[in-house]
């Protein structure tokens, strides 16, 4: 057997690093279409675009700002030896911008973006490290109407992208936080408990609580969390009989309001409430939500209220945001066969050299009518069939051949 040594002939130059990829052809067209459909929805709700740098100082994303773990950021140094990171998340930079550019504004600020985020996950995990997100952030509005609008906007964006079956799960960060505060757990135990609840490991939760000092009432609530699905009145009753935490009551009340307002949007069927839902971003303080669909293992959209984050940049402002994870959404759309992956597009206009002037004029006319025209001068050495197979190969929808000044033949692609 031959050893595994291939002559690479410069082939190593063709590869991208693991976790990033090229997007081209129909895949790229489809991604841009979905992106702009989502973008239009965001604009139509009054969100105005913002762009921030791809890299910033590490401190913007550090632990207190609660985004991804330090280890999972791409880091490098500038000439002054400051640590820089490629943004792992768009929310902290936008919060920074609001504190900087809208310091004195105390009514709504609506900002939206389409941007790539970078997370340095392990190798061979089957995950992308560069992910396109489309998102919106609403500042200076702490009302439950704002909560509901952002959830509704998520539904609207997903519908516009072409997705049909999906579920949005909503929870409230204050529910868990309130319970933990009432129980008085240490930081270490809280984080253990958080991890167990996040992985829905409730026999693990039971084990842990057995080893901590906690009232039986609160323990009952923690263990009941996974079953507190959807019936908020029942949950409220159960919790009120066992907890004295105002924060916990408030969380449930807030979710009730959210459910109610979503009825006005007609979107109540897309939402389920899950009180055991926690967020991996610790900056969330209120309503949190995630959207799931068939065909991929991760959420296609996430969002939540983060009333404490902007104040870390020097402006005390309530805020709520959402992010549609475009790359995950594309995987879902593709697996659910909701995309035209055999997309044919554009027109090829073939002309002999002698008719160049007419060809250029014709092409301009057709372009002004909204067609995409690719001009190709026919080489006398090549038969027209060669161009026909070329058009098929390149997935060009239609081919025109300029025979004479006033005769143009249409050759339809039949694939």
């Amino acid at each position: 057997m031959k050893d595994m040594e291939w002559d690479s002939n410069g082939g190593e130059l063709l590869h991208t690093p693991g976790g990033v990829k090229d997007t081209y052809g129909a895949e790229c067209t489809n991604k841009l279409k979905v992106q702009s459909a989502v973008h239009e929805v965001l604009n139509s709700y009054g969100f105005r675009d913002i762009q921030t740098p791809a890299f910033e100082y590490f401190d913007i994303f550090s632990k207190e700002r609660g985004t991804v773990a330090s280890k999972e950021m791409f880091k490098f140094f500038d000439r002054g030896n400051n640590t820089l990171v490629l943004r792992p998340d768009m929310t902290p930079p936008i919060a920074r911008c609001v504190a900087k550019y809208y310091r004195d504004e105390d009514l709504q600020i609506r900002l939206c973006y389409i941007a790539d985020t970078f997370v340095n996950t392990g190798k061979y995990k089957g995950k992308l490290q560069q992910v396109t997100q489309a998102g919106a952030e609403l500042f200076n509005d702490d009302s439950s109407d704002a909560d509901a609008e952002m959830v509704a906007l998520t539904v609207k964006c997903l519908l516009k992208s072409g997705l049909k079956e999906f579920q949005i799960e909503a929870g409230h960060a204050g529910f868990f936080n309130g319970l933990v505060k009432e129980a008085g757990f240490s930081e270490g135990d809280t984080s253990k408990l958080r991890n167990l609840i996040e992985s829905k490991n409730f026999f693990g939760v039971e084990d842990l609580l057995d080893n901590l000092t906690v009232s039986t009432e609160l323990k009952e609530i923690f263990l009941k969390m996974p079953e507190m699905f959807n019936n908020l009145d029942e949950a409220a009753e159960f919790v009120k009989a066992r907890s004295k935490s105002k924060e916990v009551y408030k969380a449930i009340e807030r979710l009730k309001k959210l459910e109610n307002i979503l009825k006005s949007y007609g979107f109540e069927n897309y939402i389920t409430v899950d009180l055991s839902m926690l967020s991996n971003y610790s900056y969330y303080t209120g309503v949190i939500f995630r959207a799931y669909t068939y065909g991929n293992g991760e959420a296609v959209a996430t969002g939540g209220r983060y009333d404490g984050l902007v104040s870390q940049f020097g402006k005390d402002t309530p805020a709520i945001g959402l992010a549609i994870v475009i790359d995950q959404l594309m995987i879902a759309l593709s697996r659910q066969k909701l995309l035209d992956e055999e997309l044919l597009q554009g027109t090829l206009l073939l002309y002999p050299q002698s008719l160049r002037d007419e060809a250029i004029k014709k092409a301009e006319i057709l372009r002004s009518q909204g067609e995409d025209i690719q001009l190709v001068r026919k080489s006398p050495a090549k038969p027209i069939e060669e161009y026909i197979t070329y058009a098929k190969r390149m997935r060009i929808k239609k081919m025109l051949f300029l025979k004479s000044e006033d005769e143009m033949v249409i050759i339809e692609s039949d694939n």
Partner: protein
Amino acid sequence: MKYLTFALAKGRLAKHTLQLLEQIGITCEEMKDDKTRKLIFTNEELGLKFFLSKATDVPTYVELGAADIGVVGKDTIIEEGRKLYEVLDLNLGKCRMCVAGPASAKKQLNNGSLIRVASKYPRIAKDYFYNYKHQTVEIIKLNGSVELAPVVGLSEVIVDIVETGSTLKENGLEVLEEICPLSARVVVNEVSMKMQHERITKLIHDLKQVVPE
């Protein structure tokens, strides 16, 4: 109806899991044929699919959504460190993750000296020594017959699964420290849990009734 796909860790555990599933009315006749070369088995009636994979790959299939539900040992779950819902302890394949070695190695575990640790579970070993014991060690990743390492002088101690301890004893080794108890767990993909919530919770609920004490 959408299929629910199960990823089972090859071997004894898969057999026991199938027996449990049979008790709650979920069968897969195709799988009982020992000679079959098929990789994936279907129960059309119930809308279920099953496949067997290497234990260490089960969390990968489940995390990325290629399987909705998996059954795999807690050791693999910790070692792989993937994002999964761990919903049920099946109480099968009970054993312990331990630090083992010759009795003489005991004092090196207590005086914080730099020792070599061989293991199939580098992540668990590292986490235990660095974050729990606060001892700096050199970890050597092996792929099997880990007991050999201290015997031939590749390492001072090993981190491995211990069931009865007889292999250790026969080679002049013993359990020096216990890291954590282990057993088989049911894991579920995060999205599947939401999208097929009713079916999956019913299944878990039914399984809970037949789990051996």
